[in-house]
């Protein structure tokens, strides 16, 4: 059933809202997760409550007033008694964070280039969010509108916006625009620390684009596709696991995954490569002069690109919508595809669940690494990129080509 | 004035307060407080309650202040004393009340017995006392604030009192506020008895008005009470002049006094009834030291020699006295008096023994003395430390020897600092260099004496670590070092005046703002300050209307 143009537009709009909503919810949640994960790693508790005391504004005051936050805090206090789910304590904090950023005073430095200063956070943000146009969260239609549904009855609602066959190229191209936001913002601040941060960031992102792309070429060469859905499907079904080639392919994917993640960390300015905003050296790096909503745009774009990088990694290395990573899915399918148990047979089919789980795990890894590792120095970072990662990825690329040839 | 006798009445609570004030006279034991034997003529140590022995003659006047202070400090007031007008007239033995309720020695306090060293020992106490008296903190000398409940005194409201009978006395008959008040409080600060500034406008207070209403008085133009009109004329005119929008109008009967418009700066408005006179502020009044505590073997030996000689002379005199007394007694046929007993030095009951300086025996010191022929003033050891004092000319040579000589090898200059001796003759500062030999595990202190305004040669060439230390010495003492790469201030700002660690520099810095950290909530500080300051002669002045 082919939709009419109007129907198509309406559905697309709904999909856009869904994807943006998903990302825009995930980003603040990620900030909350960052508090909690790093807190737990550091034998702390992270955020456990929002403003106010347990039940009212403050215990011990003569006027005990029950407030919304007070009730929430009481509930969260109760949550603290239960293992594991007590990590949800402080969850409303992400709303408070967002509110705080929205209501903060917006400061523009006197000597800043005002137009560019305002424009650059938007640029970074737009670049980071446009990328999601090409990311496919679910393998096919997420669900179909029921037949009785007015106007849209019987039409599919997809888990992606567009399924273009050069999705990867689109993503890489658009994502690299984000660096302009950082550099321009840093330059427009007319301040020395942001300038240093912006220069660092420009050099860093530009140089890490190369190994990032090269490492992504490994699965591309192996499967011969640039399309998200096709990539995981081919990985799961098309290429058989036979002998040396199959093992070699999995090994290569495994190594490539780590190389790609390393580059991804650098690409998103996360520890151990967060030189552009190294708070111990450059105060706050490129966004030193930014405040309020403008700052939060940079903030959002950084976390959005974390999601992008995770999504790419899970699609290209971790098997995408299938269960097993590194091209191991064919073996799994071989044994369980025709299993009498429905659940085992289901694990052989693509699902949005696997994809999201992988993304969440990778995001957790982002936070975990941040809590563990020190930071590289600027020149060392460049050395790692140019002298170590690029040769490494080139070798991998050649091996991938050979494997492809052998298969 | 002098104190001849001191005794302790019944009821001592063993609180140590007296010993803290005057350790030369009082000694607090487990049960009671004793008057020390050293200070008494009969040499016994007891409460002196029954025998009432006199104090030694030389202590009678010198310890007067501290005894008075101790008596005042005694919480149960059992310390009694006989005070006479002068030490030569011990006749009028009338127990005098303490001259002032001061808990610390007055500024005239003199330090312990026999010591040529005088006041500096108690400088801190004086300062503390003055501080406490003024209710100010260690480094503030701000105006004593008024109790918050008291109405603000009218600084400008005290005109020179004209004779009451003068019929031509000018007075203000009416005051009113024109339209346009900007609620600036300036008038209320000048004349709080007349004006009351509300949220929206300024009112004339009912207390001074004939009709007793509170309003702007713009329409009714009610008159002022005649007596208030007379009394407050200056302040009303001041307020009128001071009004930034000129809305305060008044009518005057008679010749209005000429009043200059007063600038409204914050400090003046905030001033309490008593303003501390800056130049007399206790923390700025620096009591310069009168002694030169420069440890030196020569001085110590001379002192010891003098002490031994004095002791011998005393003994000889005692013996001679005894001989004459004996001869006299024999001649008169009485029993011979007891022969004098030579006093045995007191046994040291404490775990404390003064480390006396001794002759240089260390090979390093001897070697250096040989090397620096004639440039060494003295070399001695004290507290297990080697001290070498050299002439300023020989300083660099000394340091070069210390570092370069194969048998010395003092590789590191760990510390360099100076001390100010304003009372010394012939020099003003001593600069000390602490050297260590890492390879030989030895320490050496090289000391030079510097005159005021004299430059020293920098040691940076020999010991690069002297760089910042010399800058610090320059910063703190003003001693310049020639040949230093960057002779600028290091800790203080570049434009700082004075050198803080000199003894003439007050603890309250020049140019420091007057911040009163202390809020006189209960008024206790105010009362005490007034009482004590009056007694101690501190300059608290009432601001004039000028």
């Amino acid at each position, binding site marked *: 059933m082919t939709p009419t143009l109007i129907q198509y537009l309406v559905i697309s709009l709904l999909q856009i809202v869904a994807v943006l909503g998903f990302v825009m919810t995930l980003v603040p949640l990620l900030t909350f997760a960052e508090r909690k994960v790093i807190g737990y790693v550091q034998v702390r508790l992270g955020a456990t409550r929002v403003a106010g005391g347990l039940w009212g504004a403050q215990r011990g005051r003569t006027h005990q007033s029950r407030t919304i936050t007070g009730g929430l805090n009481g509930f969260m206090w109760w949550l603290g008694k239960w293992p594991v789910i007590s990590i949800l304590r402080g969850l409303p904090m992400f709303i408070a964070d967002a509110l705080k950023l929205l209501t903060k005073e917006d400061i523009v430095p006197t000597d800043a280039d005002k137009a560019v200063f305002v424009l650059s956070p938007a640029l970074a943000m737009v670049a980071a969010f446009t990328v999601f146009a090409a990311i496919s969260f679910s393998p096919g239609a997420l669900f179909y509108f029921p037949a009785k549904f007015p106007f849209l009855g019987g039409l599919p609602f997809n888990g992606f916006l567009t399924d273009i066959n050069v999705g990867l190229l689109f993503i890489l191209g658009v994502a690299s625009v984000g660096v302009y936001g950082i550099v321009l913002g840093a330059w427009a601040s007319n301040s020395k620390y942001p300038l240093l941060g912006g220069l660092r960031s420009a050099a860093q992102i530009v140089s890490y684009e190369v190994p990032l792309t090269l490492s992504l070429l490994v699965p591309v060469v192996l499967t011969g596709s640039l399309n998200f859905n096709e990539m995981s499907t081919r990985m799961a079904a098309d290429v058989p696991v036979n002998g040396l080639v199959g093992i070699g392919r999995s090994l290569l994917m495994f190594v490539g995954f780590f190389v790609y993640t390393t580059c991804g960390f650098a690409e998103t300015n996360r520890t151990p490569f967060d030189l552009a905003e190294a708070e111990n050296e450059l105060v706050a790096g490129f966004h030193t002069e930014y405040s309020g909503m403008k700052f939060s745009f940079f903030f959002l774009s950084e976390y959005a690109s974390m999601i992008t990088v995770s999504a790419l990694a899970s699609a290209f290395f971790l098997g995408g919508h299938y269960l097993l990573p590194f091209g191991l899915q064919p073996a799994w399918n071989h044994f369980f595809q025709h299993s009498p148990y429905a659940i085992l047979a289901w694990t052989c089919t693509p699902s949005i669940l696997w994809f999201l789980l992988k993304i969440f795990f990778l995001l957790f890894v982002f936070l*975990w690494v941040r809590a563990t590792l020190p930071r590289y120095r600027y020149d060392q970072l460049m050395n790692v990129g140019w002298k170590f990662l690029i040769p490494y990825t080139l070798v991998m690329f050649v091996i991938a080509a050979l494997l492809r040839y052998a298969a | 004035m002098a104190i001849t006798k001191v005794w302790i009445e019944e009821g001592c609570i063993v609180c140590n307060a007296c010993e803290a004030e005057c350790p030369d006279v009082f000694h607090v034991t487990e049960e009671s407080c004793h008057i020390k034997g050293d200070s008494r003529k009969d040499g016994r140590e007891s409460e002196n309650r029954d025998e009432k022995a006199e104090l030694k003659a030389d202590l009678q006047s010198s310890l007067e202040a501290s005894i008075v202070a101790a008596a005042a400090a005694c919480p149960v007031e059992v310390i009694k004393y006989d005070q006479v007008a002068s030490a030569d007239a011990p006749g009028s033995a009338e127990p005098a009340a303490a001259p002032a309720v001061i808990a610390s020695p007055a500024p005239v306090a003199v330090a312990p017995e026999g010591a040529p060293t005088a006041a500096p020992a108690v400088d801190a106490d004086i300062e503390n006392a003055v501080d406490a008296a003024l209710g100010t903190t260690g480094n503030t000398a701000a105006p004593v604030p008024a109790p918050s409940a008291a109405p603000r005194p009218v600084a400008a409201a005290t005109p020179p009192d004209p004779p009451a009978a003068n019929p031509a006395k000018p007075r203000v008959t009416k005051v009113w506020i024109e339209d346009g008040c900007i609620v600036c409080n300036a008038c209320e600060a000048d004349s709080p008895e007349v004006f009351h500034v509300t949220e929206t406008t300024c009112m004339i207070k009912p207390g001074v008005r004939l009709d007793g209403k509170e309003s702007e008085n713009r329409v009714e133009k009610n008159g002022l009470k005649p007596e208030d009109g007379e009394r407050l004329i200056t302040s009303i005119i001041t307020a009128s002049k001071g009004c930034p929008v000129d809305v305060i109008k008044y009518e005057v009967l008679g010749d209005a006094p000429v009043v200059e418009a007063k600038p409204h700066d914050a400090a003046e408005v905030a001033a309490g009834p008593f303003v501390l006179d800056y130049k007399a502020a206790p923390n700025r009044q620096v009591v310069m030291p009168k002694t030169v505590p420069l440890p030196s073997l020569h001085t110590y030996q001379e002192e010891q020699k003098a002490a031994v000689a004095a002791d011998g002379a005393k003994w000889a005199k005692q013996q001679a006295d005894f001989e004459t007394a004996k001869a006299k007694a024999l001649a008169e046929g009485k029993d011979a008096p007891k022969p004098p007993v030579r006093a045995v030095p007191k046994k040291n009951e404490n775990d404390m023994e003064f480390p006396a300086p001794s002759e240089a025996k260390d090979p390093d010191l001897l070697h250096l003395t040989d090397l620096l022929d004639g440039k060494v003033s003295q070399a001695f050891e004290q507290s297990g430390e080697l001290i070498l004092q050299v002439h300023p000319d020989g300083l660099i040579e000394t340091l070069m020897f210390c570092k370069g000589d194969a048998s010395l090898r003092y590789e590191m200059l760990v510390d360099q600092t100076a001390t100010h001796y304003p009372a010394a003759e012939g020099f003003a500062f001593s600069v000390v260099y602490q050297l260590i030999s890492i390879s030989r595990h030895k320490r050496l202190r090289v000391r030079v004496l510097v005159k005021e305004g004299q430059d020293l040669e920098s040691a940076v060439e020999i010991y690069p670590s002297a760089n910042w230390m010399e800058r610090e010495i320059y910063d703190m003492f003003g001693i310049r070092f020639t040949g230093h790469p960057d002779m600028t201030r290091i800790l203080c700002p570049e434009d700082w005046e004075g050198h803080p660690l000199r003894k003439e520099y007050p603890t309250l810095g020049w140019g420091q703002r007057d911040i009163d950290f202390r809020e006189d909530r209960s008024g206790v500080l105010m009362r005490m300050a007034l009482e004590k300051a009056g007694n101690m002669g501190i300059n608290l002045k009432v601001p004039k209307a000028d």
Partner: protein
Amino acid sequence: MASPRYSLLRTLIPFDIYGGMKLTGKYFGKVLRQANRGPKRTHVVVEYPEVAVTLQPRFRGRLQMIKDEQGEIKCVCCLACEKICPTQVITIEKGKKEGRKTPFPLQYDFEMERCIFCEFCVESCGFDSIILNHQFELAGYDREDFSHGMEGQFQNMFSITPVGHYSVASED
């Protein structure tokens, strides 16, 4: 230190990073598996103010005056504390009281804002008439919160001030 033979291997395979990640992961797992208020806790933070902070018996908090069994103030105004105080925050006004032999402090003015809690005053007191209590919450919204008096509105030289609501001061 890495032996040269395996240095290439060590470079290629990040054992060092793995070790660190393992350690931090271990702590994450531990804290996650424990309830915040369970019997066994790995995390070191205390959920103040709901969970009380334990203080050592010698803790030096705010200055407090002591009364004896008859409810009489023990201070006899020997001014030892006033003299020893390095920051001069104590001012005592000495006075008399009916039926009391020793002097009576009309005012014991203690300026908590500048107190450094060194306990020299308690050490110098020969009558055990002052102690430093266990109040550690010494922040207030207004200067009046720091007022300490013996009479009238602020009878708090003998107890905890209202600002220290959460203090665990009653260890006696």
